[in-house]
């Protein structure tokens, strides 16, 4: 009935994580000094395979890679070119035409012997039975990789080739890309193409200043959280205007607040949002879900106390702090606003509390102490 799992049982940990074999040790000895090898062996011996199997987790900290790799193979597209430390030949020169031709044909023959053309092509062959290869891969490889320089002791082999050229990392889907990666404005200007999502050009300046595309901007979480009327008493009478305070965040660690004042409600709100997006800054998050310990901040008469909470607790706060936590991507948080509860100052105090968190690593370095995150190191983030 499919109720029994027929998957083969997992091999024991000692098979998953084997100690170095003699061959591997010989290979290591080529690369490392005996002292380093002893250190490596001590390190390997310190962790039992069972513990590694049960508690080992893939690194997610700042120094980790964004892809899986154990560095056994050199991948020409991802990895940096290994430095060439061989001494430079003083007599190196570019080959003459004849030498180039010989070098190419020799290299081509060698490649052909190593990678013979597929058998299908042999069945299709016409004319010269030796030369026919529909993929012509060997030909192109020989063209790129055959030696071109003649040294004292014969041809100098050329280094590894990067087969794939640099591919652009990010392509705008907007259709009118205004700002290049390095921040220079490209020749197409914003006025000529009007995006239907932003017909009034509210975000034009922001896009030019920050290099964000409209997709990026609409992907952000931005919201006007405080708005009220303010009056300026002049000799002409009361001049009324509108005040807006907006928050913006990417739900993944960036948060900003922006203020604006103006006569018209719509413009002012949009301006406040733009200011909030422009002011976005990274806030420290513990495990990308809560804050580092408890923080307090005071703005005017408003005191805000934010408290870190365990996983699954949720954001149990008043609505202003809730909105900010949601925009910043904080998932576990508790808060208290014990004194005055002015909305504007609550938002400002929360922002300043989030920004002034004490990072345990910094505290440890200030005191000259070693610090270990027990949750992560001993319990693999499982408690």
């Amino acid at each position, binding site marked *: 009935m499919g109720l029994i799992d027929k998957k083969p049982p997992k091999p024991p940990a000692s098979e998953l994580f084997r100690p170095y074999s003699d061959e591997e040790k010989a290979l290591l000895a080529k690369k490392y000094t005996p002292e380093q090898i002893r250190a490596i062996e001590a390190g390997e011996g310190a962790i039992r395979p069972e513990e590694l199997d049960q508690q080992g987790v893939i690194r997610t900290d700042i120094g980790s890679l964004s892809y899986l790799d154990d560095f056994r193979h050199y991948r020409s597209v991802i990895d940096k070119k290994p430095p060439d430390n061989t001494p430079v030949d003083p007599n190196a020169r570019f080959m003459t035409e004849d030498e180039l031709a010989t070098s190419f044909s020799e290299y081509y023959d060698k490649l052909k012997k190593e990678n013979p053309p597929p058998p299908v092509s042999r069945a299709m062959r016409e004319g010269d039975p030796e030369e026919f290869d529909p993929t012509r891969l060997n030909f192109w490889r020989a063209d790129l990789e055959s030696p071109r320089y003649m040294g004292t002791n014969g041809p100098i082999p050329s280094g590894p080739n990067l087969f794939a050229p640099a591919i652009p990392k990010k392509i705008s889907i907007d259709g009118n890309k205004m700002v290049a990666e390095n921040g220079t404005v490209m020749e197409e200007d914003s006025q000529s193409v009007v995006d239907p999502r932003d017909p009034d050009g509210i975000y034009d300046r922001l896009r030019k200043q920050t290099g964000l595309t409209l997709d990026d901007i609409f992907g952000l979480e931005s919201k006007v959280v405080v708005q009220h009327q303010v009056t300026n008493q002049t000799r002409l009478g009361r001049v009324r205007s509108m005040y807006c305070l907006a928050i913006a965040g990417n739900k993944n660690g960036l948060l900003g607040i922006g203020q604006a004042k103006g006569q018209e409600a719509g413009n002012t709100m949009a301006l406040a949002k733009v200011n909030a997006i422009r002011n976005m800054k990274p806030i420290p998050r513990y495990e990308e879900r809560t804050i580092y310990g408890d923080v307090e901040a005071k703005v005017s008469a408003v005191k805000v106390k934010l408290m870190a909470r365990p996983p699954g607790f949720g954001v149990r706060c008043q609505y202003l702090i809730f909105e900010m936590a949601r925009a910043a991507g904080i998932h576990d948080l508790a808060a208290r606003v014990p004194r005055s509860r002015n909305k504007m100052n609550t938002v400002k105090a929360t922002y300043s509390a989030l920004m002034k968190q*004490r990072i345990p690593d910094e505290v*440890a*370095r*200030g005191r000259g*102490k070693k610090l270990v995150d027990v949750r992560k190191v001993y319990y693999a983030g499982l408690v």
Partner: protein
Amino acid sequence: MSLVNVAHICSHLQNASKARLGLTSVPSTNLHLSLLLALQQSGFLSSVTRGGLTPPQIEDLSSYVPDPVTQSNVATRRLWLGLKYWNNEPVLSEMKMISKPTRRIWMDVEGLGKIVRGSKAGYVQGLTKPGECLYVSTDKGIMESRDCVERKIGGMLLCRVL
């Protein structure tokens, strides 16, 4: 065991840190000395040296041998403290008394364990801020609350430091 003078030290160290002083001095007593040595052990202070009314030379702080305390000079002895700063911020930024001269608070290991784990015990708030330390006066000397829990010793709560 005058808690008034310990309270003075608390405010003095906060003030000195806010003023970004590198070296400051407090009156020398045995209680002060053991508290400040515990602070140095935790890394809040760079040096604790007994000296006279003038500070010892900074160059030979490591090899400095203080004058013996005698009846004639005991009143002028002071403890010279080196303050630490990191990333433009003082390492010791807050120091507050828990026991007061008029209301001393003692706590057993169970209560201290609660505090160290971040929850409240009695009227004393837990250590919830990163790097917060609490110093306890025990019959084995003054030590940090985490040490107390490890060694299963209770005592009188002196001050919390951040």
